[in-house]
């Protein structure tokens, strides 16, 4: 079995007396799109920053393709877009990408720059100065910048925070395209619906700990089968679609008249709220 693209093991980080991460384990496989959820201050950005070498862990380890996070080899394998970022405003979009091509040693040249700008629908803005771009355009340019040199792992910290619905759709489609190309993505987001739509795997962090992880389907599992009978509405908690016929058969056998059956699922939002205990940053 191939080594995970990102392997986080017993990761701890303390800022003075404050524990930002308290033993997090997480893996991102090749081509997997993992959504990292959690309230503000839960430790999501800290985890991402440790993975790209911006922050040093207090204990535990993070490896990118088997290399220590922060090492030149690990940094060469990843692309990163910070939640708070700024590019020199006097550069044009194409100049920024050329600058990053030189930094990563990419020989993609003009073709790579054009392809990346088209990927984020900024093909017409190649010659536009960054200071003249809207925040949304800058955010999409930031994603293009992170993709320079075809990284194997993409770390995105709130990449859609400044985007309008159209911009979000562009990013969603882009992430799906990246998955098809086998790029692994760790996506920090507050937008549960977005994560639920596109991520293969979701990890929820609260107070520096991983409190829930799994596929969106696993997490938003069946909550109950609700049956309306002659003697009232009865709810079978924890039962799913597969159990519904047996429940109905049992009720009918017991002499109940069944008028309506509903299989209720808990949404990712329900799971998230339950996992973080209503905590907000």
């Amino acid at each position, binding site marked *: 079995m191939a080594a995970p693209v990102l392997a986080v093991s017993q990761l701890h980080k303390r800022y003075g007396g404050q524990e930002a991460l308290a033993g997090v384990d997480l893996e991102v496989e090749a081509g997997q799109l993992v959504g990292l959820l959690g309230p503000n201050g839960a430790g999501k950005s800290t985890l991402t920053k440790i993975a790209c070498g911006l922050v040093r862990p207090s204990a535990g380890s993070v490896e990118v393709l088997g290399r220590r996070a922060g090492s*030149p*080899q690990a940094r*060469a394998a990843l692309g990163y877009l910070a939640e708070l*970022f*700024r590019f020199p405003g006097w550069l044009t979009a194409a100049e920024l990408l050329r600058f990053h091509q030189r*930094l990563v040693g990419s020989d993609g040249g003009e073709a790579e720059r054009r392809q990346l700008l088209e990927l984020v629908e900024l093909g017409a803005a190649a010659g536009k100065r960054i200071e003249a771009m809207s925040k949304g355009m800058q955010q999409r340019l930031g994603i293009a910048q992170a993709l320079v040199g075809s990284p194997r792992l993409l770390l995105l910290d709130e990449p859609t925070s400044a985007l309008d619905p159209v911009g979000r759709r562009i990013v969603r489609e882009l992430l799906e395209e990246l998955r098809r190309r086998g790029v692994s993505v760790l996506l920090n987001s507050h937008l549960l619906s977005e994560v639920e739509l596109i991520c293969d795997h979701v990890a929820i962090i609260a107070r520096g700990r991983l409190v829930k992880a799994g596929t969106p389907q696993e997490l938003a599992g069946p909550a109950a089968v609700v049956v309306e009978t002659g003697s009232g509405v009865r709810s079978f908690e924890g039962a799913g679609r597969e159990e519904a016929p047996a429940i109905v058969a049992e009720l009918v056998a017991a002499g109940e008249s069944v008028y309506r059956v509903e299989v209720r699922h808990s949404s990712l939002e329900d799971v998230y709220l339950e996992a973080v205990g209503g905590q907000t940053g």
Partner: protein
Amino acid sequence: MNAEALRSAATVVALSVQEGIRRRVFLAVLVLTLAFLALYALGAHFAFRDVDEFAAGEPAILDPHAFTGATIFGLAMFATLFLGAVLAVFLTLGVVRGDAESGLLQPIVVRPIGRTTMLLARFAGAALLSAAYVVAVYLAAWAITEATGHWSPDHLLGPALGLALAVAIIAALSLLASTVLSVTAQGIVVFMVFGAGLTAGLLAQIGNAINSDSLHTIGRAASWALPFEGLYAAGLHALISGTSGLTGVVLQLGPFGGSEAAGPELIAWAFLYLAGVLALAAFIFSRRDL
């Protein structure tokens, strides 16, 4: 450093130079420089003319021409160092902490270039621009002095290179300050350090004049602790090192800090100092969470 790291470093140096030239402060310094050179040309013209008229037919105790030339050119050196220091500080303002807080640093640092190379490249960009600037202004001031008064210093290139090294040291100190201080605090602290260096030079000069060994030693020790002042004093000295007699003695006092002969040990110390400051800055930067 391998070829890839060198290429990345050259990319960051080029970006730093481009960014420096585009900054408004660069334009402001250029305008100030042009104003200074114009005023300097005017002042030099009248100074030489008046001193020639004043000294005509009088018995010469001092060489009035050499005295005027060395004094005003020494003044030009001080102005050049000051403007070069302003440029060096502004080009390195917020390079680490400021850029990290604004989010400008992170997209670069996560690239394979590495923090130390990135920091050294930023230093190289700022130092190159500042050094080129002081050498150009110094040579322009010399050309004006030569054209208006037909006076040239005893050594021309040595002081220019000393000034270049002095502003490189100021850029390095400013970079070091940027690893721990906010932008405003960095600017204030570096200009205070610059002022302290020049004050140390003045103390040594006063100690010399009043024959106080202690004051002279304290002043000199302080100026070695901040060697940009030692380089400046050595440059002033080199301007008139071949001038003898009373003119030479009087010129030793120099404007804005006394001139002081320095051997190769000062140059060696200045390079060591520069390397030490950069190493400390790189160490602090490498341990900083961004």
